[in-house]
Structure formats: structure tokens, C-alpha cells
């Protein structure tokens, strides 16, 4: 394992932010830490970055507890963004790269290709304060990875980005992964993790509720959901025998089935009442699994929306 967290724990005064959390991140994967706001994702990442010290437990990177050499091998994008407003893009990128131990000559050659990739090449000698929020975020992403770190840690990378830029970032992340980099990122939007990650760790209220390969997790929870798109009032579906829960996505309903339920008979009962446009047996979404496993109130968790970010 490349990055290992061993029973790390952090309390603020009396509130437990992270409770004996352990996770293992293999090399060269996209690893997602997911959970609702306030679950402890940022605290966990800050402990990995050694910005705050855990009360107990330790973080091991590449076989050794994290030390000073770790900072040059990691690229870190904090949740709260910010860069020097009065410096030009070129200066900021160069400074951040040098702070990460990158040689200026090497860094200089990488600036323009990255800015072109992000569509910021025209701003290279402009001041950071002239950028829009989305542009500044892309710039900060560039400063995070310009020194070509082995492991990239991104806290809520996608927040505040429009769908086009989310797509751009996803492509960059996949490229980085193909280049052998390990990427750890947190998000409270589970759909993003679902589409992108190889591995996930779900945390809720500071505790790990589930982790592993995304395929394994879905397989484990079986094909026990149905998506059905109907015309008319679907409120009766909830009371059909064999249906344990219904999530109303406005355009369609997602049904969780009770054990031993028969999808065929459910379809028959729906067709008798309304017109069915689509009926599909699906894997449960991470959202549904999370609600199920973490036993949390669904209102605490951001619900995936139809046609949400990419």
C-alpha cells in the first residue's frame, strides 16, 4: 500500500472530528473520500498533509511515516482556495513550484503548456486578481501539480466549477492516473466519485462506514434497485409489496427492493396503474448505498440530480 492511515483520530474540544479512521490507498489509483459536509473529510486530508497533528494514530507514505520529504512528493489543493492577488500567474506558479522543491528551470518550461491546457495562456503575465473565480481555481490546480508530484491530494476539487471545467479536470486526473500518479480526492457529491474513482471510502460523522473497490462495493450490494420512468402520479409505488424504499428524482423513481422481491410482479402492478416509459434493473448508486449503510437521514446528504455536473 502506498498511503496508509492507521487509526487516526482528531477531536476539537469535545467534538470528535475523525474517529479511528484507517484506510489504504494503493499506488496509481483514483481514490475518493466521500461523505456529506462536516463528515470529517477535510480534517482527514489535513492530517495526511501534516497541517494538523492527529491526536492518535499515524499516516504512512511509501512505507515510512510521513516526514519532511513528503511535502515535495505531494501536490495539495486545499478546500479553501487562495493565491497571492498581486502576483502574476507566472510568478505565482513559479513560486509555488519552487516551494515544492522544483528547479526553476524545469518549472518555467511547464508553465505555458499547463496554462494553455487550462485556457489561461493569455493571462500569464496578468495579476491573479484579474482572474474570475473559476479561472483562479484552475490556476490553483496548475500550482498543485506543476512540480509533478507522485501523489495528488485534492479537497473538493470540483466545487465551484462549471460542467465544462469539471470535464476538463476529470480528463486531467485520468491522464495523471495513466501516468502512474496516485490521486486522492474528497467530494460531497457522490456521483462524481462514482463516475471517476477506482476506490472509495465513505465517511460519516467522522467514522468510516465503507471502503473498497467501487466495483466490489456495487457487486456486494447487488442489483437490487429499479429505475422506472412513468407518466402520471407515482406516489402509489411506495406502497407496492416488495418495495422497501423509493427515491423520487422528479424525472424518474428509483426503487430499492426488499429481499426476495420479484421485479416482474412490481412492473406488472405499475403498468396496471400508469404508462411506463422506461423500466430498468440497476446497480444501486453510491448515494443509495450510503444512505443505507450509514443509517443517516437522507436530508443530510446531497442528493444526485438529473443532469448534474457532467
Amino acid at each position, binding site marked *: 500500500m502506498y498511503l496508509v492511515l492507521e487509526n487516526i483520530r482528531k477531536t476539537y474540544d469535545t467534538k470528535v472530528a475523525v474517529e479511528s479512521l484507517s484506510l489504504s490507498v494503493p499506488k496509481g489509483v483514483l481514490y475518493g473520500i466521500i461523505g456529506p459536509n462536516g463528515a470529517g473529510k477535510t480534517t482527514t486530508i*489535513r492530517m495526511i498533509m*501534516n*497541517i494538523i497533528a492527529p491526536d492518535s494514530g499515524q499516516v504512512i507514505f511509501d512505507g515510512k511515516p510521513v516526514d519532511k520529504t513528503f511535502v515535495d512528493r505531494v501536490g*495539495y489543493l486545499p478546500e*479553501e482556495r*487562495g*493565491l497571492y492577488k498581486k*502576483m502574476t500567474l507566472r510568478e505565482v506558479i513559479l513560486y509555488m513550484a519552487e*516551494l515544492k*522543491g522544483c528547479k526553476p528551470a524545469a518549472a518555467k518550461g511547464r508553465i505555458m503548456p499547463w496554462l494553455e491546457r487550462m485556457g489561461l495562456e493569455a493571462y500569464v503575465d496578468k495579476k491573479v486578481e484579474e482572474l474570475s473565480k473559476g479561472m483562479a481555481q484552475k490556476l490553483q490546480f496548475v500550482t498543485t501539480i506543476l512540480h509533478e508530484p507522485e501523489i495528488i491530494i485534492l479537497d473538493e476539487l470540483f466545487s465551484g466549477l462549471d460542467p465544462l471545467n469539471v470535464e476538463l479536470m476529470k480528463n486531467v486526473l485520468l491522464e495523471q492516473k495513466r501516468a502512474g500518479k496516485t490521486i486522492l480526492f474528497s467530494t460531497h457529491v457522490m456521483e462524481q466519485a462514482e463516475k471517476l474513482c477506482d476506490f472509495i471510502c465513505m465517511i460519516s460523522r467522522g467514522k468510516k462506514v465503507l471502503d473498497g473497490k467501487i466495483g466490489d462495493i456495487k457487486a456486494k450490494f447487488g442489483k437490487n434497485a429499479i429505475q422506472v420512468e412513468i407518466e402520471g402520479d407515482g406516489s402509489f409505488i411506495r406502497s407496492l409489496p416488495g418495495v422497501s424504499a423509493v427515491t423520487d428524482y422528479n424525472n424518474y423513481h428509483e426503487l430499492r427492493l426488499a429481499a426476495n422481491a420479484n421485479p416482474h410482479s412490481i412492473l406488472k402492478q405499475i403498468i396496471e396503474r400508469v404508462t411506463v416509459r422506461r423500466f430498468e434493473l440497476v446497480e444501486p448508486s453510491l448515494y443509495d448505498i450510503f444512505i443505507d449503510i450509514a443509517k443517516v437521514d437522507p436530508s443530510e446528504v446531497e442528493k444526485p440530480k438529473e443532469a448534474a455536473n457532467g
Partner: protein
Amino acid sequence: MDKFWVVFKNEYSQVVQKKSFIVGILLTPILMGSFILLPSYFARKTASNTEYLAVVDQSASKIGEGFVSSLEQYKLEDDQTQQYIVDTLITIHRGDTAEYNRIIDSLKTALNNDEIKYIMIFKSGVEMADSNMLLISNAEGIRTVNRFEKEISKIASTLRLENSNVNLSVDSVLALTRRVTLPQQDAKGESVDFGTKWFASMMFVMVIYFIIIGYGQVIMRSVIEEKSSRIMEVLVSSVTPFQLMLGKILGLGGATLTQLFIWIALGLLVYAGSGALAMNIDPAVAHVAFNPLVLVFFALFLIFGYIMFSTLFALVGSLVNSDKEAQNYIFPVTMLLVLPFIIGISIIQEPNSNMARYMSMIPLFTPTLMMMRVIFIAPSATHYSFFSGILGEATLAFILLVLTTLLIIWVSARIFRVGILMYGKRPTLAEIVKWVRY
């Protein structure tokens, strides 16, 4: 250590590149020059406005007339117009109190309407007691009061002489009773007066003061900016807080030194230029300001005073969330810088008193107070030793300053480390103490 240089280089180039840095280099000497030259220029300048006055004379000896005619010698800057014009000269009989009160009341009205500036009242026996005269004004000028006193003294002395048995003119009496001025020389045979030393000490100490307070606040703001824009999180995941703090302080310090070197170079150019123009620098000033001991200790006290205080300013920056909040914390630090100027007044009067010795040994005051003492004592001393006298004391104070600076850096770094990642609430003193121990 590499990371320290990255921070150092960035801070240095960010400051040196700024327009304000170049403007500051050019503007500061001009401002300093005007500070020195303008007051004396204005002081020397003769008045440009005529001032009106009323003279009320109750005396039998007609002092009023003599006073009025003595004022004729004072002219405006054009050397033609009278500075003082007597609007009314009123002579009243001594006993007529009702008339006196009526006149004074009407003159006071004129005074309040700015028609006249002064009411000068003489009663009988001015030469006997000062209480027999009175000057009324809403906005008296100190120079005018001095002139009036001088002229009235002459008149009073004349009257006193007339009443005595001495048969001499006033001027000869004044010449005979002239006060002496004591000529001074230091052990090296130079005649350096108090004024020159005072002036030189103010110049050197002001430079130290302005650099510390100016750049200290720059450091504080830059820490606050990094905190409020949340760059800090990226920074502390790349460099240690200690490297960051020291890189900032010394990077800016380097910029300050650059500025000083440019000033010195400019100064030497002007000096060389003035030599060519045969404008010689006052030898007394040169004796004090170009003394090697003064220059060496100036450099040492400036550098370490700067490091010590900018560490404190960086510390303040790490404890607050905005410039506004910083004002509360900055007050004690600023007081530490202003206090020596108040203490300094007594130190320059008695630079070798025990109080001066002890106060200038307090490291927080050393850069200013010991600097003053070095300027007052060192240029005149003939014998220097590292174990006694001014050189010994200044060296000891310097060692204490360096040790204290290191201690302050150590303590501040421990608080800084935690403070820079604290958002929202301001830490209590108890928490700060905990951070130092942790």
C-alpha cells in the same frame, strides 16, 4: 534551508519590484530633508502680515510712547512695512476706573472681532513690579511676546537707572552685565555642541524607528494576507512555519538593506558633489556622524532591532484575521518603539547616568537608546575598551540584543506555527502560552 531561500527570494523580489519601493527610495530622503529644513526655514522667515495693537497707558512716566516708538524697528520681510501698527494709544488718568473699564471692554470687543491682535496695558510702576503691566491676546506669537519683553525691559531698566545713583546709559549697563557662554571642547579637542549631537542622534534613531515600524507593518500585512486568502495552508504544507517566518523577515530585511545602500550611495554622490561645489560639511557634524563606532553600532542595532521587532509584527499578523483586528495587538509593539523617545529626552541630558545605562541595556530599547548614547559619548571618547566605557556597554547591550532576538524568534515561531492556521476566533493569552509550551 533551500525552502528558506525560496521564500526569501520571493519576498525580496516582490518588494523590490514594486513601484512604491522605488518611489520610497526617492521620496524618503526628500521627506527627511524637509522635516529637517522646513521648520528652521519657517522659523527664520520674517512675518508677512501686519499686526495691529492697542496700547493703554495709565503710567505717569509715559511708558506707552516709548514702547510704541521702539516697535518701529520691526519690519515685514519687504523691509519697508511696519510689522506692528499701533491702532490706538490711549492715555488714561490713574484714578479713572470707570473710564478704564469702558475702554478695556471696547478694546476687547475689537480684539474678539480680530480688528486688533494685542492689547498692551501699562500701569504706573512698571519698573517696580511686573504685575503693573498686562498683555491681552487671543493668539499671541511667541516671537512677538519675546520682542515686547525685550523692549519693555529696556524701558524699565532705563527708568530704574534714572531712579538710582548710577550714572550710566542703559546700553553700557547691559554690556557690563552680559551673561557668559561657556565654550566647550571634548577630550579630542573638538568643539561639538549639544545641538549637533542631539540632531545627529535624532537622525540615526529616526532612521531605525521608521525602518522598523514601516517594514514591520509590511510583514504583518503580508502574514495577514496569507492567512485571510488561505494561501497559508498550501505554504505550511510546503515549508516549515519557521522557514516561512524567517524567509519573510529576512527577505524584506534584504530589501531594506538594498534601500539603505542606495541611500548611502546617493548620499556619497551628494557629498562628493557638494565637495566639488566647495560646500563643506560642518566639521562638528562630520565628527559625530562619520565616527566609525557610531556607524558600526548603527548597522548592528538597525539590523538586529529590525529582526527583533519584525518578528513581533509577524507574530501579531499570525494571531489576527484582519488589519482591523491587528490594531489592538499592535499597540503594545508600537509603544515599545515610542517609549524610548520619551525616555530618550532624559538620557540625552545625562547620557552617562545610571538610569541611562540601565535603560539602554534593556534589549527592546537598545536599538534606540543605546544608539543615542553611542552618538553622545563615543565620538568624544579618547580611549575605547570592550570591557568598560561606552564601547563595553554598547557591546554588552548588543550581545543581549542578539540573545533576546533569538529568544523572541524561538517563542514567536512556536506561536506563529499554530496561529497561522487559526481562523475566526482570536486566541486568548492562555492559549498562546499553551502553544509556546506545546
